[in-house]
């Protein structure tokens, strides 16, 4: 029995199950064990369901899921799965749909075919042995050996998700069939899908080899620029990790953005102090090189230790509450690294020696980068206890604010400088000391 689950964002998951009683944990573990699917089911507990039934999330809250259909494993039915157009989100381009189809294909038991096309969700379509007329744009193929396969394995309801290569090999040979042109031409150009499926796991090199670390630098220029753009212009409601990182976290961005930020803050602080103190006769310019090491320590500690703590915390809550969304450590490092990018132009603009300007800039950049973080981590904690979720988000934003306030206070002197008190001899012989603050 295969169960279809889709989230509010309409991503589909096909699950094998012998009964209709599945638990959230099973769904989540199945999602995690198939990394190439890159899906996040947002639904939880399911009892006995029928096609098209609505399933409410445990604990309430928005975003119900819909069961879209099922395939029975009994030989006499040989139903076909109707994936339909609801499988993808409305804004997903057509190659995404084909991609999802490709990834799901290997999950389908041999003898069954995955059809894409226009059909209503939950619609049951009979196969070539049977009876129902197909929708026009659906393509069928002859099941030569379906009967034999099913006869050999009548109760085969589980598939080996752990060995996608075997199932994929079967699918691969079937892919050459003429009935699949539409998907083939969409998928044939997308080599990354095929290699992912064939490879199984992405990062498979042992950690002491160089190739293992090369997988963290597997980004092109345009990808890095896209991610930077996504961190500076956060789209409300879109998750940075899902949208840009998408199971290819890189270490290039976090490392070099932090390095640039360190030097930007140190150089800008030095320059701004120079301009502020320029008029003073007793001022002698110093390059303040010590501050570079202090800046480096602070920023790298923030960008790597805070994600570590956050990841540990999310793992701990995950084990207790079964959160729906969970990020890997590298993805969290990625988000934090790219979210720091907006501080680079801010640090350069902090050279302007006006207090108001500096505070406005700081609040603006804090809002931008904070919103990236909030929109990333809110889905991961919102199922939790309300107070804990809000406390987590508050801590994230607070630490971010502390970083920027601390940098501003330490590296950039205040624009109103204390001038040494001039001693003005008063008329009455007393000494009047004026102090300018």
């Amino acid at each position, binding site marked *: 029995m295969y169960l279809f689950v889709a989230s509010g964002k309409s991503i589909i998951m096909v699950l094998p199950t012998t009964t209709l009683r599945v638990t959230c944990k099973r769904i989540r573990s199945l999602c995690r064990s198939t990394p190439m699917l890159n899906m996040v089911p947002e639904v939880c507990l399911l009892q006995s369901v029928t096609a098209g039934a609505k399933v409410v999330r445990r604990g309430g809250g928005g975003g119900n899921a819909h069961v879209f259909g099922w395939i029975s494993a009994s030989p006499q039915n040989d139903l076909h799965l109707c994936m339909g157009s609801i499988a993808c989100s409305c804004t997903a381009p057509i190659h995404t749909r084909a991609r999802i189809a490709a990834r799901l294909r290997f999950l389908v038991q041999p003898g069954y075919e995955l059809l894409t096309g226009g059909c209503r969700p939950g619609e049951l379509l009979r196969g070539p042995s049977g009876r129902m007329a197909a929708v026009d744009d659906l393509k069928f193929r002859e099941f030569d050996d379906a009967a034999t396969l099913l006869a050999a394995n009548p109760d085969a309801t589980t598939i080996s998700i752990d060995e996608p290569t075997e199932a994929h090999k079967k699918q691969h040979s079937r892919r050459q069939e003429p009935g699949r042109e539409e998907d083939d031409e969409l998928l044939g150009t997308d080599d990354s899908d095929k290699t992912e499926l064939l490879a199984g796991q992405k990062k498979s090199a042992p950690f002491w080899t160089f190739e293992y670390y090369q997988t963290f630098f597997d980004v092109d220029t345009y990808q890095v620029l896209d991610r930077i753009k996504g961190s500076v212009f956060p789209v409300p409601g879109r998750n940075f990790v899902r949208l840009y990182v998408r199971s290819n976290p890189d270490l290039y961005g976090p490392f070099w953005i932090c390095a640039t930020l360190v030097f930007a803050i140190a150089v800008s602080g030095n320059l701004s102090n120079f301009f502020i103190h320029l008029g003073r006769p007793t001022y002698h310019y110093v*390059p303040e090189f010590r501050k570079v090491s202090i800046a480096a320590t602070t920023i790298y500690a923030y960008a790597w230790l805070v994600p570590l703590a956050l990841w540990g915390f999310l793992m701990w809550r995950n084990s207790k509450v079964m959160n729906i969304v969970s990020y890997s450590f590298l993805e969290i490092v990625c988000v934090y690294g790219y979210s720091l990018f907006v501080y680079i132009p801010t640090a350069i603009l902090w050279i302007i020696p006006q207090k108001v300007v500096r505070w406005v800039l700081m609040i603006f950049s804090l809002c931008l980068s904070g919103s990236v973080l909030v929109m990333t981590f809110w889905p991961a904690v919102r199922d939790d206890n309300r107070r804990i979720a809000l406390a987590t988000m508050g801590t994230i934003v607070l630490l971010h604010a502390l970083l920027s306030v601390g940098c501003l206070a330490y590296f950039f002197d205040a624009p109103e400088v204390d001038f040494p008190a001039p001693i003005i001899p008063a008329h009455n012989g007393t000494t009047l000391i004026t102090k300018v603050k």
Partner: protein
Amino acid sequence: MRVSCWRSLPTCGLQSTLFQLRDLKAVGKKFVHVMYPKKSSALLRDWDLWGPLVLCVSLALMLQGGSADSKEDGGPQFAEVFVIIWFGAVVITLNSKLLGGTISFFQSLCVLGYCVLPLTVAMLVCRLVLLAGSGTVSFIIRLIVVIAMFAWSTLASTAFLADSQPPHRKALVVYPIFLFYFVISWMILTFTPQ
């Protein structure tokens, strides 16, 4: 001084192990290649680290005698300059190899080290200009010289290293080099004598 021994192992025992004039000529030839960067492979093929060492030490020495001897907020110490240059070069090399570059580790170090030569020249010029005076005019002269030499260094090293990088990642490899020479130029520009 066993440089000559590495490259001609069969005759290793026959040659003397002194630092020969031939090695000095090789280093000098590389200096010329850096100042006039063409896409020649001489720098890459016969890498050596003597030139970078000499340049690094001279740059670090010239950056001493700055505004602070042991005060907190002074310029970089000798060890700091050394560490920045070598650690920076190693990190950039690792970065380019992780991104899929085909250049070898020491070849890249060699190129990055040799391309510090224009900045060392800039440091020399700055010290001479500062001997004359330290007003606004001298600052402008120093600024122009440092900017010109920084551009030269970056372009020279990019000319040597860019070919060995995968095509869609050239900018990802060039940017850290830019940052590296920018930091060195900053240290040179902000040098103020006591």
